[in-house]
């Protein structure tokens, strides 16, 4: 009985499970027919590379949201990590990378501490660290960007080098994290426990899952990925921007939700978020190319798509409840 269901092409099922992929393909086809430049290699690589930075934090956000939380501090963590990286940029690359990533891990832990130990709602806890960290950034930089005149070649190569020819490293890291993260979520005990606590935290506790530990880890991952993003950004731009990542948390949430992750937790995929990020990115490109349209239409379109996706999601939720 169930097998038949799988064999038949079930349109509704496909729409539901792969809506982000479908939207992406439609946008892509539309864009490549409409604009000649769109299919050039440079353009496609650009599309991907430009979106890696928001992509990293969107991946982190996805993991936190699947676990039933939310992390608004990612933009601030991105910025401070970028500044740490900029300040260190003349040192040995290993030290730079280690310290930058440690910054992210530590701040992620701070969020986790507030959520897990102080039991403050994630939205507010990470809101506070978002504000606080941003304040600290302004203080320490004097609201100026931090240049990296003595940066090492290796530092430059973090984003711009090409370990694999034709693929900028920024993109390589992005794809690597997508694959590693995807495997982590699907094939490890820890990954499955993330879904479990997001789906039904009480049941997860009853099943002997260390709920606090898993939660804690998700915030650390989110912090870590935000710092990766900061590192790549500083390497790409050649300076640590004090305004970096401002408001990105919202785009990361949007990409996550458009990618099919349930905002209430328990369901979602990194690959969905990947396309969620690309959808937002490709829309930006289209609006750029369409010179006679105001780029602000892009905001409106983003809002509308996001709304449409959650409404479709909610309809399946209602069915599920009954």
């Amino acid at each position: 009985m169930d097998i038949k269901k799988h064999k038949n092409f079930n349109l509704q099922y496909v729409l539901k499970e792969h809506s982000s992929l479908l939207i992406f393909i439609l946008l892509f086809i539309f864009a490549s027919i409409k604009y000649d430049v769109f299919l050039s290699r440079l353009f496609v690589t650009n599309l991907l590379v430009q979106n890696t930075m928001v992509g990293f934090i969107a991946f982190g956000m996805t993991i936190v949201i699947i676990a039933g939380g939310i992390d608004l501090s990612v933009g601030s963590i991105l910025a401070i990590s970028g500044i740490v990286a900029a300040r260190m940029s003349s040192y040995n690359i290993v030290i730079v990378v280690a310290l930058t990533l440690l910054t992210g891990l530590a701040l992620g832990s701070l969020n986790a501490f507030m959520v897990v130990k102080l039991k403050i709602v994630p939205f507010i806890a990470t809101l506070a660290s978002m504000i606080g960290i941003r304040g600290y950034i302004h203080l320490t930089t004097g609201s100026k960007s931090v240049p990296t005149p003595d940066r090492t070649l290796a530092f430059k190569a973090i984003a711009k080098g090409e370990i694999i020819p034709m693929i900028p490293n920024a993109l390589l890291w992005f794809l690597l994290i997508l694959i590693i993260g995807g495997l982590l979520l699907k094939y490890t005990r820890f990954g499955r426990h993330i879904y479990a606590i997001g789906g039904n935290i009480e049941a997860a506790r009853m099943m002997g899952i260390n709920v606090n530990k898993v939660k804690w880890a998700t915030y650390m991952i989110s912090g870590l990925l935000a710092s990766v993003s900061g590192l790549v950004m500083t390497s790409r731009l050649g300076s640590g921007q004090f305004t970096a990542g401002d408001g990105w948390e919202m785009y990361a949430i949007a990409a996550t939700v458009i990618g099919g992750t349930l905002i209430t937790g328990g369901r979602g995929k990194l690959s969905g978020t990947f396309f969620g990020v690309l959808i937002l990115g490709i829309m930006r490109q289209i609006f750029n190319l369409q010179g006679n349209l105001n780029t602000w239409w892009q905001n409106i379109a983003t809002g509308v798509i996001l709304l449409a996706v959650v409404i479709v999601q909610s309809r399946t939720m209602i069915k599920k409840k009954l």
Partner: protein
Amino acid sequence: MDRDVLLHMKNINKQYPGVKALNNVELIVSRGKVHALMGENGAGKSTLIKVLTGVETMDSGEVILDGETIVINSPAEANHKGVSTVYQELDLIPDLSICENIFLGREIRKNSFIDWKETERRADEILKSMGIDVNVNDILSTKSTAIQQMVSIARAISINAKLVVLDEPTSSLDSSEVQILFQVIRDLKARGISVIFITHRLDEVFEMSDEMSILKDGELVATSKTENITRLEMVSKMIGMDASSIVSYRKAYNDSKIKDEAIVKGIDLVAKPKVNGQNIEVRKGEILGLAGLLGSGRTELIRLIFGADYLSSGHFEVNGEKTKIHNTRAAIKNKIAYCSEDRKSEGIIPYMSVRENLTLAIMGSISRFGLLSRREQNKIVDKYIKALKIKVSNPNQPIRSLSGGNQQKVLLARWLCAHPELLILDEPTRGIDVGAKKEILDLVEQLAEDGISVLMVSSELEELVQSCDRVQVIKDGKTVGGLKNEAITVSAIMDKIAHGAVIN
């Protein structure tokens, strides 16, 4: 040490603030036997199980499993030691697949990665051995409650448990599903696994269990081989009354107060899957009981009458006129009131004061231009606190600080002050102590005397026998029989539930 004893819980004590939940309780479960644990709500069954499974810690006492004294601090530890529990509310993850739910927390791994193939194979094997044929990759939430329950049991089996605790496993299953479950339990027994079986249904106790213990008010009042105890003895132990007083526990009839005309009539009501063409008629001044097992569609039927669920076909007549009841507001306008069975999630507004909870349904009528009249509110609240003998030190205290019985009275008062003509009560005495139970039932009778019609659902058949003028018995979403006045007895109702055929 007796070789035949698997579990021995000795002198277990547990104190909650203000309540002695367990008082020197002893429980002995034999190896490879089904042990029924009985008791009314609040008798301490759940607490005892929670202590055993490490959800709660006991204040004092000893747990001996397989001849060894053990300390269990968490459900995971209990699992590890071979004690597995299937809870009443399903403790599974709805968004994950069936096979994953079975092995979550003890994932099957190869080279530290989860081996999905093996997971699927073993899940399939376990479910097949239980006679259940499903695709183990399906998401759990897409399956019926029965299947979910089976998955929960499969999970319990898969940990190689010595002891499986089933906490009211049959409460949401229909009769054929119950039989599948029983087959599973027999299988467990055959493998030498002991089962603690908590249920409210006497039939099941006699059909399935080898031995049994009865708790009452946190104390063990009886333990015996099932064959050595009669039904009547069991019931009398559970409610703490001897058999003769149960029989005389029947109110006098007073037919004169009941008028012939129907106040609310539901005709050919359909709301799949639990209501399949039901007819119901409540007359003025009568107490009509709805009997049927849990899952028979009784709650679903009364929710339809209150407009709380979607009616797919059929219609209502209120006072003889065809009336649309498509939402709760329409029902209230037609003077229908409804107290849900789930006090906590569908009744009280926990941090709101007693005063405001009580007047929640009539706020509109005691306000002018949306401004609440505090004086009017106080008048009503004082009146009902007195009339219903609600124990509350200050009506401004939050309702959650009241005992279950008093909360229930406040919820009753919430509707009484709206002066309904039909009051629908779903399990009005669930989870409240015996004294308050009696008060509430007396109150219901008083209301009927005053001319309010009452439609009542209860799984405690004695209550229906005691209170109702008429009982309608339903099964699988259909009416299978009706009883009137003296004909209403526990055995008659049970007989209808067991053997009744659909009547129209």
